């Protein structure tokens, strides 16, 4: 069997997940020896834009018709489609505008010229096409990307933590920022996998990895309210990276 063919794509976003791939400085040259990267516009100007792919890695959210068309075309030519990063998995920060009047926002910012722009609400990939694997994170963790490639090369699927950031934080024996210092920490409802990077630095979790399965945001909102936070603002904070994942 030949090397698996791979495409790496960015829809609308910050390119952070593609950057994490390029940040695998110690593994990058080994990686390109193991997989056959056919289409990676950010890194190469010679791409096969029509060949079938074993794996497509797609970051970013869908914000334009052009994004949606590209995504459908990628799905069509790919055996496995992997959503890379919080924008692809949940919609990400651009989805903060759900519920707002988009044409008004466009006009406010661009004036008359804004009317003709190809622009719509941010959508996660799964709202447009079937997604086979989610690797969340804003950005994704390098190790999670490498584990996914290793697993896929072995015909396996990677397993990511199903518990909250809170658990990782406790394992590091940190003092609780939420209960002891009254800081607005999203750790109890956010998917682990980052090693509790922020609370470990005494910085409250902002939920950038999106919600864990079975999160209980209502209980967290009650705690935040007891700590003196406005419930509406606290709920908005929990929705910063994943508009639909948390109440």
């Amino acid at each position, binding site marked *: 069997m030949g090397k698996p063919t791979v495409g790496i794509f960015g829809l609308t976003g*910050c390119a952070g997940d593609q950057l*994490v791939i390029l*940040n695998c400085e110690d593994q*990058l040259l080994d990686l390109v020896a193991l997989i056959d990267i056919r289409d990676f516009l950010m890194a*190469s100007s010679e791409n096969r834009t029509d060949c079938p792919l074993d794996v497509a890695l797609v970051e970013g959210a869908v914000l334009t018709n052009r994004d949606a068309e590209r995504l459908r075309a990628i799905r069509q030519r790919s055996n496995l489609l992997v959503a890379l990063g919080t924008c692809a998995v949940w919609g990400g*920060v651009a989805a903060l505008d759900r519920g707002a009047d988009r044409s008004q926002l466009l006009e406010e*910012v661009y004036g008359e010229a804004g009317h003709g722009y190809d622009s719509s609400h941010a959508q996660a990939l799964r709202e447009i096409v079937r997604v086979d694997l989610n690797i969340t994170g*804003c950005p994704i963790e390098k190790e999670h990307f490498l584990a996914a490639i290793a697993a896929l090369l072995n015909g396996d699927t990677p397993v990511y933590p199903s518990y909250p950031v809170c658990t990782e934080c406790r394992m590091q024996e940190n003092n609780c920022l939420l209960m002891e210092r009254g800081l607005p920490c999203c750790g109890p409802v956010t998917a682990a996998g980052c090693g509790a990077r922020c609370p470990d630095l005494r910085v409250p979790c902002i939920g950038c990895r999106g919600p864990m399965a079975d999160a209980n945001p209502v209980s967290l909102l009650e705690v935040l309210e007891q700590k003196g936070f406005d419930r509406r*603002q606290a709920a908005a904070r929990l929705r910063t990276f994943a508009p639909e994942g948390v109440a």
Partner: protein
Amino acid sequence: MSVIVIEHLARVEGHGGITVELEGDAVTNVRFDVFEGSRLLEPLVRGKRYDEVPPILSRICAICSAAHTLTSLKATEAAFGIRVSPQTELLRELLFRGESIESHALHLFLLAIPDYLNYPGAVALAADKPAAVLLGLRLKKLGNRIQETIGGRAVHPVNALVGGFGKVPALDQLIELRSGLLQAAADADAAIDLMASLPAADFCHSETVYAALRSPHLDSYYLGDEVMVVTDGNRAIVPASDYASLTNEKAVPHSHAKHSSFRGSPFMVGSLARLTVNPRRLTGKLAVAMKRLKLSLPADNPMDNNKAQALELINDVERALEIIEQLLRDGIKDERPMPVQPRAGTGTAITEAPRGLLIHSYQYDADGCVVAADVITPTALNAASMELHFRRGVEQCAEREEAVITKRLQMIARAYDPCISCSVHLVRR
């Protein structure tokens, strides 16, 4: 009429293209098309509390995420009247240097140099010249290590907060960075050797206006509140509070990036502009390297921005070392962030992101929630200048073969190191 279209620029961050219209040999129209989706992040931070703003606006762009974060903090602190400690200022400058090293190494070695040697990308280049790519990856990794140590993460730093840092780095972490930087000095020199060995990119000449941060320290990406604009030897100063006069942004139908001009002229920001505005930095090793690269300032060739980035690699490594030496000399203190007392008001911050001037300006209410936010990014500032240089590049191309013109246009675009996610941003009028 004939039209040359570069549908989707490769080896740049984000989604953009170039369209050139020709009438015989005359260029009638040139457009830098930006079709990156608009995320409308600036209006979306309205109503958000001050601590939520930096992480949201950092997501404008990953490659410049440290610059966006730190510029955001600087603007908020200006609005609230917070003065951070000298140690915080040093650590922030160090974080800027780490980002600049990573970004320049990524751009030069993985995105730009393959053009000069006729490779489609770094993977193909690595097959024939692994040493060149490994050199770039080593420098890139060092830049990321600095960002991880100071910012807590290489992309979208988490440790930099309004008033200071969550946790300051430990002594042994700084010592480790120092040893990495000492080794990197040789790599930065090798980068100059490599750049000096490349075929000349001599196909686009144009008088260029340059703009960069005027820093009291000459060599800071972070400190300072004025922009200096250099036009044909003349210098003009624009204070941060008057940034609108610098940008004069106007929305154009073909692009989600607004276009900027200063007194009617497009201007260039970035490495070349920084060296032009602050030439006193160019002493010692830098002066020697500049001669080797045959760079003279002010330059009339936008491709020289690649040379300027290579020079900045040397400078960033030197400056990062100086900062660490000073932190070690003074003794790193376990400081907590300054107390934050929100107040109603406006704060504007100007810094130097790897690609050039970055401006964040916020208006806050008395509770510390955003009333209005405005972000002006280097690639948006450069858009009009890029179009001017695309035009000159086509006009000065003696061959009318499309492949030649297309390659040159792409090289000019890449020399600007455009960050198209950044350029798509929204400004309240």
